[in-house]
């Protein structure tokens, strides 16, 4: 008998219930889809169609020079929409830079969601009003923020959950590890959604990890991992809703891996033909999130041509409004650069602001 045979050492938790399903969870096209609420499916469909149009419009705006850059979520709309709709108004969303669609789907004005990418300020919406953290450019760094906020809410007895979004590449970052570890130790009400879209810019998942799946990473932290078809909006919505509900009720964090695909290049500035075959893209186009849902809705008699056209018209109206407003030049006040650095500007900042004001005045005079 050694000390290892005594209660001095024992596994902290049973690993088996934490393991993800062997295959990504699906609902659309399966018998279980019959139980889905038609009203929910209708909402998801409207948002998906709108999201697809939003991505196309934002990409077009980069070509017209109206956005500095746009990381498209075309092909990933199911994840974006499901993330937004799985949350209650009191919950918080922590998006990455590719998640403006989730921000829009949660009710933020598209122009405000695109402020960062337009370049007139770093964040266009009020994070407190919408309960959406600023879009995070440094990878995975927003994950510990979500944990901290969820932890603070739990300490305050406030039934709030946080949903944090990250990509497959982001799971290699140290902040991913630290966030998941803190969340599990603290049993923070937070859900991590990994959109595994196949690439970190150009680097495929095989060069990113040797884990069986990204969802398996959850087990090492002592939280459940869920694997879901990221193009099946009903499945992603259900998995996220369950995880958010569990978190809110004190059940602790969950890691969700949604398997999806980035149909567009990393951004408009990227050339995806340098690192992937068109045949691969075509295969994923045949597993399109909008088509998957429309097939289900049509088969159940929940979507006719008129309803589909209504969704397209509403999306077109959103795009036209976005286009029109983005073609107006934003109002810029260069002296605002000094206003929000500190609660009160330092003497040095006041002097620099005065210098800039003088330069602006000289520009006006000449």
């Amino acid at each position: 008998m050694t000390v290892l045979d005594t209660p001095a050492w024992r596994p902290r938790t049973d690993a088996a219930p934490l393991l993800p399903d062997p295959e990504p969870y699906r609902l659309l096209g399966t018998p279980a889809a019959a139980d889905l609420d038609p009203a929910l499916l209708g909402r998801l469909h409207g948002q998906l169609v709108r999201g697809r149009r939003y991505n196309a419009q934002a990409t077009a705006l980069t070509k017209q020079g109206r956005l500095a850059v746009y990381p498209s979520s075309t092909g990933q709309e199911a994840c974006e929409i499901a993330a937004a709709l799985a949350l209650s108004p009191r919950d918080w969303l922590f998006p990455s830079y590719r998640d403006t669609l989730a921000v829009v789907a949660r009710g933020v004005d598209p122009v405000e969601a695109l402020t960062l990418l337009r370049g007139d300020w770093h964040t266009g919406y009020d994070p407190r009003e919408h309960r959406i953290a600023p879009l995070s450019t440094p990878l995975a760094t927003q994950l510990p923020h979500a944990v901290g906020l969820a932890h603070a809410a739990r300490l305050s007895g406030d039934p709030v959950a946080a949903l944090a979004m990250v990509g497959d590449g982001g799971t290699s970052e140290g902040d991913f590890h630290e966030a998941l570890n803190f969340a599990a130790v603290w049993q923070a009400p937070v859900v991590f959604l990994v959109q595994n879209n196949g690439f970190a810019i150009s680097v495929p998942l095989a060069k990113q990890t040797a884990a069986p799946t990204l969802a398996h990473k959850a087990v090492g932290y002592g939280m459940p991992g869920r694997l879901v078809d990221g193009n099946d909006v009903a499945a992603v919505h259900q998995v996220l809703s369950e995880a958010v509900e569990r978190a809110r009720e004190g059940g602790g964090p969950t890691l969700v891996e949604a398997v999806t695909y980035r149909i567009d290049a990393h951004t408009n500035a990227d050339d995806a033909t340098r690192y992937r075959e068109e045949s691969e893209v075509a295969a994923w186009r045949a597993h399109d999130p909008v088509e998957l849902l429309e097939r289900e809705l049509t088969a159940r008699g929940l979507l006719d041509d008129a309803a589909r056209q209504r969704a397209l018209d509403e999306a077109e109206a959103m795009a036209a409004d976005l286009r029109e407003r983005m073609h107006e030049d934003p109002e810029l006040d260069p002296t605002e650069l000094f206003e929000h650095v500190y609660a009160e500007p330092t003497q040095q900042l006041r002097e620099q602001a005065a210098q800039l004001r003088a330069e602006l005045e000289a520009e006006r005079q000449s």
Partner: protein
Amino acid sequence: MTTATTAADRAEAPSRKPATMAQALNQALRDSLAADPAVHVMGEDVGTLGGVFRITDGLTRDFGEDRCTDTPLAEAGILGAAVGMAMYGLRPVVEMQFDAFAYPAFEQLVSHVARMRNRTRGALPLPITVRIPYGGGIGGVEHHSDSSEAYYLHTPGLHVVTPATVEDAYGLLRASIASDDPVIFLEPKRLYWSKADWSPQEPSAVPPIGRAAVRRTGRTATLVTYGPSLPVCLEAAEAAEEEGWDLGVVDLRSLVPFDEETVAAAVRATGRAVVVHESSGFGGAGAEIAARITERCFHHLEAPVLRVAGFDIPYPPPMLERHHLPGVDRILDAVGRLQWEER
């Protein structure tokens, strides 16, 4: 120092007795926790143990684990979580165990803590205090002795505060925790056990952040310093009297905001200045301070502004650190080079 008291003072305030900087810091945390339920202390070993330097001694016992929390051993995670807690409305006070152990949190600090207020046009201020024991002189190993202030003061959006006296340790920490801006609070670890007559029953007034203190007025030259180098400068000023020099000593107390007015006035009064700090000189705080003194006081200067700093070397092993740290002789040597003969 300003905390020195006369016999008459002691008679009026019998509760005053020698207290250490560590005790004053502990009291500041206690009083902040008691005054504001939003204040949360967190870090490695800050709970049951009371911190490796015992600055958080007894806080978990008295305020509970939710208010003073032992975290997993991961500095980016600690600071990143503090960001989220501050977003929710709490006022986290984070302990980084040692200067060089704070580096894993650097990305959170530079990319988020310093910028969230600006990024969100003031909607998400982050009232986070990051306490970091810094500097050498305690016989510690390489990674327990860094003076890391230059990394922080080069990052817009952070305040960088460092006390040099027992009284300021209390007052500046209270002020930092109360600040709505993120504060890097650098604790000179070799002064943790320095003593002064100070009473937790009648704590000192909370000074505003950004005001330097004139610790000694002088007529012939001005030493500008902060944190662990203040006692060295005061000792040098006393020794200088034998040489016939009457040295003033300015304690910056905060590097950001930088109190240009107090420094410029003190230097104008003497026409000569030496900036003293123990971190490496090249690209250090002293370079900025010397440049600003020159810009502001050029026509009052009798000699170039000199710097006495640590050498531009990785922190030396403990048995050699005394050669690295600026001492009285090196300061007096610099004062001697202030072109007295050309007066």
